[in-house]
Structure formats: structure tokens, C-alpha cells
């Protein structure tokens, strides 16, 4: 049954995503669309050296996309650019290649395990990470 996607943990994160927070004078702000479903995520970041100092998001998307953005809001502050890239890669591998969820701080990404079997939804989970990745690159570039 594919409704095992909609576990309470995901629904709770999705609900929490209604408030994506805010960042004053962000170093970077990136909006990404999912061409297939019209989902849209904006991520604002403020850096402190190589680490994320503050982060906010706006999501117009499904519960999966919202939940992933909310996990990011909860976990990303304090992380490095490389750390985020590694986590995004682990998440992708978990969905596409049957790998285990990330360990440690990001282990709650395991709530997305049931999405594995639904290829058409993988991008819903990955979109906020893609937006975050772009925002971090932009921030790095703008610092020169």
C-alpha cells in the first residue's frame, strides 16, 4: 500500500513547514521548480564562514516536499557546504539505490524510506535539497 508514505512523522513535518521562518539580509536566496508537478521551493541562507548561520524556506508543494524542507530547517544550521552535499547524496542513494538512511543528525531522513518505491515522488523529497545546494553555491560565489 503506498499510503505508508504518509506516516505521522512526515505529516507533522509537513504541517510545521507552513512556517518556514525568515532570514534577514540572506547571503543567498534560490527558488527551484519541479517541472513535473509545479512544486516550488525557495531557500534563503545566511552564512557564517563555511557554516550555515541561518536558514528559511517557502514551499508551495506536496507533503513530501514540505516535510523535506522542514527537516532542513531543523537540521541544517551549523552544517558546512560539504556536509550538506554529502547528506544530499546520501538521501539520493537511499531513494534510488536502496542505501541506508544517513546516520547521525540527519537520521530523521529515514522517514522518507517508504518513498523509495514511488519513483515519481523522489524529486519531491530531493527538491529542497537541490535548492539548498544552489543557495550554498550562490553564497560561496557571492563571497568571491
Amino acid at each position, binding site marked *: 500500500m503506498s*499510503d505508508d508514505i504518509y506516516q505521522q512523522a512526515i505529516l507533522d513535518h509537513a504541517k510545521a513547514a507552513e512556517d518556514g521562518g525568515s532570514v534577514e539580509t540572506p547571503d543567498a536566496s534560490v527558488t527551484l521548480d519541479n517541472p513535473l508537478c509545479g512544486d516550488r521551493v525557495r531557500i534563503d541562507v545566511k552564512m557564517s564562514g563555511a557554516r550555515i548561520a541561518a536558514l528559511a524556506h517557502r514551499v*508551495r508543494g*506536496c507533503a513530501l516536499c514540505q516535510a523535506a524542507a522542514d527537516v532542513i530547517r531543523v537540521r541544517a544550521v551549523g552544517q558546512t557546504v560539504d556536509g550538506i552535499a554529502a547528506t544530499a547524496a546520501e538521501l539520493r542513494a537511499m531513494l534510488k539505490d536502496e542505501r541506508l538512511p544517513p546516520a547521525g543528525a540527519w537520521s530523521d531522513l529515514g522517514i522518507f524510506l517508504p518513498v523509495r518505491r514511488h519513483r515519481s515522488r523522489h524529486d519531491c523529497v530531493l527538491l529542497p535539497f537541490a535548492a539548498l545546494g544552489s543557495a550554498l553555491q550562490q553564497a560561496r560565489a557571492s563571497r568571491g
Partner: protein
Amino acid sequence: MSFDVAAVRALFPLLAQANGDAPLHYLDNGATSQIPQTVLDAVLSYETTSRANVLRGVHRLAEAATAAYAEARARMARFLNVDADEVIFTSGTTAAINLVAYAYGDLLKAGDEVVISLLEHHSNIVPWQLLRDRRGIVLKVLPVTDDGRLDLSTLDKIVTKRCRLIAVAHASNVTGAVSDVAAIVAAARAVGAKVLLDGAQRAPHGPIDVRALAVDFYALSGHKMFAPNGVGALWGRRALLDEMPPFLGGGEMIRTVTIERTIYADVPHKFEAGTPPIGQAIGLGTAAEWALGLDWPAISAHEMRLAQRLLDGLGRRIDTRILGPSGLQRRIPVVSFAVNGAHPHDVCQLLDTRGVALRGGHHCAQPLMDRFDLPGTVRASLALYNDDSDIDALLEGLDDAVRRLG
């Protein structure tokens, strides 16, 4: 009811196989319809008894294949009430519209105008954008009313003397609205423009009297009208097709080839370069013939009764907004809606667990979504084989999904 829906369902193997354990309420017909055994049989008969290339062979398989292919064209022509040699087999609606955008487009000059609308499928938008970029034509857009119909109130302003073509959907794949073709044709005729109808969504709902519509081009896809993928048809007026240069080059579309100069074959072959989708065209012809034999007044009554049942059920929900006409006038049984606080994909995913197959998203009509400031809608698109249980399963599932997501 003179229309026996159970008997029709039995003709479709995929529907017949669905059972109590894994029920199927297939309401995604606007994307692709199911296919009846009789069409599969026609394709299989070609593949296993007369598989050969067409037009040039003298051996008996080639003669049989050529005859079956010609018969498929004749059947498609009857379905559209047009001449067979004005029917071009393409790989689908998208290919058909692109053919017109390239070949008719070649007759246009910078500054000439093409009019589309805000409710078009991307297949009837992007080809014209590419033409705009290629030849400098001006692309103009008819607006859409609040209930998801073509807004023709400014038609006379938008369609000017520079207009060479109006290309719009015969029926919307999102709102289900059927266009007021007579008004569009009148506006076009007044300035000497041509009219193309994108009939992809109209074709599954019965034969079309294209002659009576008095348009110039008509495009459709096999896979949406109970036929195989990979085939569609473009009808065009003979005089126009004769005037248009060829689009794709290759075998079958030529009279003589030298390296210096090629003389093209007559219509329709001029526009059918290469080996056509023979088995698929035979399937499409069979689907057209099958449809010609059905009782469409009874089927329409059945489809509309189901659409009403769905509209009523959705109308009772305060969290649900219908994107499209609220009534049954000038519509096909395609119903789109948005549910407050429930994303279309989540709704569709949850409904899938009950065997209800819907589509959620922008339906390849992003400009229309932007018009209504929606990321997407949930769409139920019905076909003749749907029944009350399909609608009820949708409505019950929706209740449950909203409760879970809310």
C-alpha cells in the same frame, strides 16, 4: 439506460482483470485511455499474418499490409467525415501540431500573427513559440474566463488582419470546456486566417464532423482514443496541404530524388516520410471503426450523468474548488479541482491506494495554472467505460485523504 457499461468494460482487458483485491477506478483517461481487445487483435493480426512494409512491395505480405494501411486511413477519414487523402498519419497530436507549425509556418512572414489561448496544452504552445523564434511571427493569446473557458469577448480585437492562424483546443484537457468553434471560425474567416483544432481530448468522446466544423486542420492522438501509442492523425484541407512545403524528408514522401533536386509525392504521402507506424495506424483505424459503431447519444448521456455525479459530490465540499465550468453544457467529462490544504500529488497518491487513478499537477498547461495561481489540480477524466463505482470511490477516497492530510 440503453448503454450497457458492464458490457463495454468487458471489452477492455486491463479493466476486466481488475478485481476485488486490487480494484481499479481508472480516471486518468485524459492522459491515456485503455485499449479494447478488438484493437489489440487488429494490431496482432498485422504483426502475425501480414507484417511487411507498405507502399512499395509486390509480395503478398506487402500487398496485405498496404491494403490494411489504406483501409485504416479510410476509417480515420470516416471518423472525421473528411476525405481519406487529406488524412496524414503522424506519431501523435504533438507531432501533428509541430508539422503544421513547421510546414504551414514556412508560409508565414515576420509580423504575421498566430493566436492561441491561455488554456492550451504545451503541445499547442511550444511549437508556436519555436515558430516565433524561427520566423518572427507574433504570438497572441486568447484569455480564459473564470470558469475555465476560452474568453471570446475580445476575439475581434485579438484577431487582426495580420492573423494567419488560430490554433486552439477543441476541448480543454484541464477544465473540460468545449470551445465555441463557430465563433472562432467566423473571426478567422473575417480576416482570412486558418483554424487548427487540437482534438486530442475531444476524440475519445465520439466521431467528429470536421467538415461541419469548417476548420482547416484537426489533430488527434491514438492513445487517448482507445488505440495504440505512437500514432495520431492530422487532417488538413487539401489545398493547404498542397501549398505547404514538406516537413520531414525521407522515403515514401518523394516522387524522384537526385542529389540536386527532389520532387515530392502527393498529399498525404508528402507528409509521411519514412516507414509509418503501420501496426499502430491499423489499430487506430480499428478504434475509429469501433467508435463509429457505438451509440454516442447514449454514451454521452452516460458520461454526462457521471460528470454530474462527480460535480455534485465535489460541490458539497466546502474545501474544494472546481477549475472549469460548473455545469454540463459544452463540456467533456473532464473535471479538475483543487482542495484547500491538500496538494494534488498527495491526494492522487492517497487515492491510488484505493485503486483510484487520477492525475495531479499542471497537466502540461502551466500558463492556465498561472492564470488561476495554482501549482496544479487534481483531474478526473472519464471515458465511456467508467461507472458510478468509479465516481463514488473517488469521492470517498477524497474524504479520507483530506482527513489524513488535514
